[in-house]
């Protein structure tokens, strides 16, 4: 009844799919981290011009489904002249979605730094830049690293939804194999296993990276 041979025969496609999912997610993660850092920095400002747009962005993205966001980017934006290929759209959608969550996580970390520490830095004559980097960002990132890690693994898993606009990633390859073999269960069961491996690999790599980057004493 079950026939996994059709899936095994297409192992090259699967390897390629895993590679594209990793590439897609990595691009999304790097951009999301940039959005997160920028947004969190803007949120520290007391000017409403910076504060309000960031708040609206975070709330809108966090309270609407990723599927609707990616449909909006892919199907709606061409009507106002912005046209992108599916994979590009997927990267941007992942970056925007992950970015909104990153802003919240990083903000939480920055707020956990006691004010006295920042004042002490200023009293010692450190520059604004040094205070932001060494006193705020590094300890804050150390505190939120686990939360950020699981958010980025979630982003990788969410990237499977990008198959709905036929972006280049694992689930899309799976759908292609499925439409040629009609072995839906076998295909998706295998793919699910591959996602499990991907998330385990990412978890291990990121926690190793975290230990290297944020272990005491740094530098």
């Amino acid at each position: 009844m079950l026939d996994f041979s059709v899936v095994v025969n297409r192992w090259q496609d699967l390897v390629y799919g895993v590679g594209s999912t990793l590439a897609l997610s990595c691009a999304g993660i790097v951009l999301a981290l940039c959005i997160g850092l920028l947004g969190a920095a803007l949120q520290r400002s007391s000017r409403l011009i910076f504060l309000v747009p960031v708040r609206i962005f975070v709330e809108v993205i966090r309270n609407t489904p990723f599927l609707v966001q990616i449909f909006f980017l892919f199907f709606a934006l061409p009507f106002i002249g912005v046209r992108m290929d599916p994979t590009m759209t997927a990267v941007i959608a992942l970056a925007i979605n992950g970015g909104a969550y990153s802003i919240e996580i990083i903000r939480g970390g920055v707020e956990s730094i006691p004010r006295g520490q920042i004042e002490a830095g200023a009293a010692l004559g450190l520059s604004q830049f040094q205070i932001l980097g060494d006193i705020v960002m590094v300890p804050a990132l150390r505190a939120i690293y686990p939360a950020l890690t699981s958010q980025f693994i979630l982003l990788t898993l969410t990237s499977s939804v990008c198959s709905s606009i036929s972006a280049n990633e694992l689930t899309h390859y799976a759908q292609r194999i499925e439409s040629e073999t009609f072995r839906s269960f076998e295909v998706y069961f295998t793919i699910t296993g591959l996602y499990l491996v991907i998330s385990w690999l990412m978890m291990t790599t990121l926690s190793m990276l975290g230990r290297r980057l944020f272990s005491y004493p740094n530098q």
Partner: protein
Amino acid sequence: MHDFGIPEMFFLLQGLKWTVLLTAISFVGGGIIGLAIALARVSRVAIIRRAAATYIALFQGTPLLMQLFVIYYGLALMQFSIDAWLAVSIAYTAHASAFLGDIWRGTIQSLPAGQTEASNALAIGYVSRMRDVILPQALKISLPATIGFAVQLTKGTSLAAIVGFVELARAGQIVSNLLLQPLLVYGIVGVIYFFVCWPMSIFGSAMEKKMSLGR
């Protein structure tokens, strides 16, 4: 070709009805099973604990879309002639049970061990200890996270659109294909989701703030 009007809005709201219903069913079903998972996860018997941990890890380590596909096609393969509705509900219930189970596992373990020791010293049995001592406190602490998950689940039900279940996202897709006005239609769909999820998010974070003041 005609414009977005009352009938289209009505169709979207019909979709919203299924979104809310699917969320409610899987949240309640997932809550009941999730409670069992949480209790199994903190059980004294190692094998039960490990089984629950594996169950949780499987759902947390795989995409929701794949869970949906595997359960959906798996049920079909087992020759169960059940309709899409039931299959999708089962998939979301399983998904919710793993995540709620892990949230509640966390809050049960966050309670001081002295509570359990005191119960044991007073010869309070397992059922009464859980029902009267541990769970009321644990569930109260977990409320912000539980509400947060309800928001995630509401948004997650949009993926049922991909297997053809007509909820809000799929309704939006249909209307958008019909009117060729994706900017407007997906905009409205997004706004509807926002006004369903946002109040829950605000409620959850307000509760979190209130609780952190109490400590």
